[in-house]
């Protein structure tokens, strides 16, 4: 708040704060503070496996997501997006929980819980033993989940997971995402987001698409 917000303010773009806690009280406290800031929205992180004793527990069920989201909704006037964990059997349940609690949108997917072992040391590579898997390898999982959620909810979906090119973004949009975001791609090439936008534009030119909204959810299933 002290350092990052003033820094980000110099850019002509929307600022959405990702908020994570370990108890419902944490989320509510945080939301109260965020409500007073000059920001454009809040993304509730109910699903970060990299944060110890994190929010994973809330994010996996309809009831859990609904409970946290409604408590936050009561104190937050700003646009509220709920970020969902893919580490569930049915992604539509938590998505519906967010919608029913009054969220303005859902974003998915967060990282997949993974593990990797150093075969020479016979120990996990990560100090925490397990951790969040992201990057291009998770894209098919993300696209599938966005598609599934799009069939069930009517609030907007922000799709993410492995997007590094415009083509990747188009896949998410065809599956039902109204917006997309880039995470890991930024680690590799800091101007990934710009390239993604260019790629989307090229696709639109190629197929003579006037309004990008035309492609949202436009996938035709086999």
């Amino acid at each position, binding site marked *: 708040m002290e350092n990052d917000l003033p820094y980000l303010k110099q850019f002509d773009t929307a600022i959405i704060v990702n908020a994570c806690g370990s108890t419902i009280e944490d989320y509510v406290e945080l939301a109260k503070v965020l409500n007073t800031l000059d920001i454009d929205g809040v993304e509730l992180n109910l699903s970060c496996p990299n944060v110890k004793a994190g929010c994973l527990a809330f994010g996996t069920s309809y009831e859990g997501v609904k409970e946290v989201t409604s408590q936050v909704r009561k104190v937050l006037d700003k646009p509220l997006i709920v970020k969902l964990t893919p580490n569930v059997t049915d992604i539509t349940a938590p998505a519906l929980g967010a919608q029913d609690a009054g969220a303005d949108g859902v974003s998915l997917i967060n990282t997949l819980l993974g593990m990797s072992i150093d075969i020479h040391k016979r120990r996990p590579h990560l100090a925490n033993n397990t951790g969040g898997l992201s*990057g*291009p390898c998770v894209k098919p999982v993300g696209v599938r989940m966005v598609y599934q959620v799009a069939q069930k909810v009517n609030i907007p979906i922000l799709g993410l997971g492995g997007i590094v090119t415009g083509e990747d973004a188009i896949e998410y949009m065809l599956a039902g995402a109204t917006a997309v975001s880039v995470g*890991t791609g*930024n*680690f*590799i*090439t*800091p*101007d990934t987001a710009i390239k993604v936008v260019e790629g989307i534009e090229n696709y639109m030119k190629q197929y003579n698409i006037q309004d990008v909204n035309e492609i949202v959810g436009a996938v035709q299933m086999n």
Partner: protein
Amino acid sequence: MKVNCKAEIVKIEKLKEDLYKFSIQAEEIVSCAKPGQFIDVRVVDGIEPLLRRPISIYNLDKENGILEFIFQVKGKGTSLLAQRKVGEKLDIIGPLGYGTFSIKDYKNVAIIGGGIGMFPLYELAKELKEKTTSNVHIYMGFRNKDLVTLEEEFKNVSDELTITTDDGSYGISGFAINELKKDCEKEVPDKIFACGPLPMLKAVQAFAAQNNIPCEISLEEKMACGLGVCLGCAVKTAKSPSDAPEYWHVCKAGPVFNATDVEI
């Protein structure tokens, strides 16, 4: 300014079985890079391995816009890097890191390094010799004779060079830090710079603290982005309370830190 560019590989030297020196054409980075900084290298242009590999700047040839780095083959990324050829272009970001070595006039500087930690110390020593009046004594520690590298190069940028090997097969037998300690009985340096394996850094940190010698150490941590975004390369600050630890990130606040500022 930090740039993401495609730098042509102009020269490759194999220094040892698993040690390579690359010279790359990178004017923009060379013109503003400081000793202690690093670059983040995409070892191949394809998808795998996805993440860049951080590698220190070894030498900056400002006149010709050439940056040199030396790397040891460790795993998948560095072995693919070792297969790259002269004339190919490397996708790099740099110069990275805001914590750099402080170049100014000292009386007696001790530079101590071990193994692959030697590499960032070369540009440091070179700039101390070129730009300041400092008297520079370099201590290089290696495990054994076969691993000793860059002796001539470091000799050329120092007033005195001490080489040690753990097994005594070359130079003085023992750890480099012990030689530094011995020399301090005669004259205490007014500045220490160190980079190398963690046990060595800890010993140097403790020694500098006991003797009140200002000391800068360069740290290495696994990092996914090198840009301050992924927050993976955390290091605990020395003064933060144990129940509410505060962290810095090696890629951003470092890689060079005042030894008294970090808990390693």
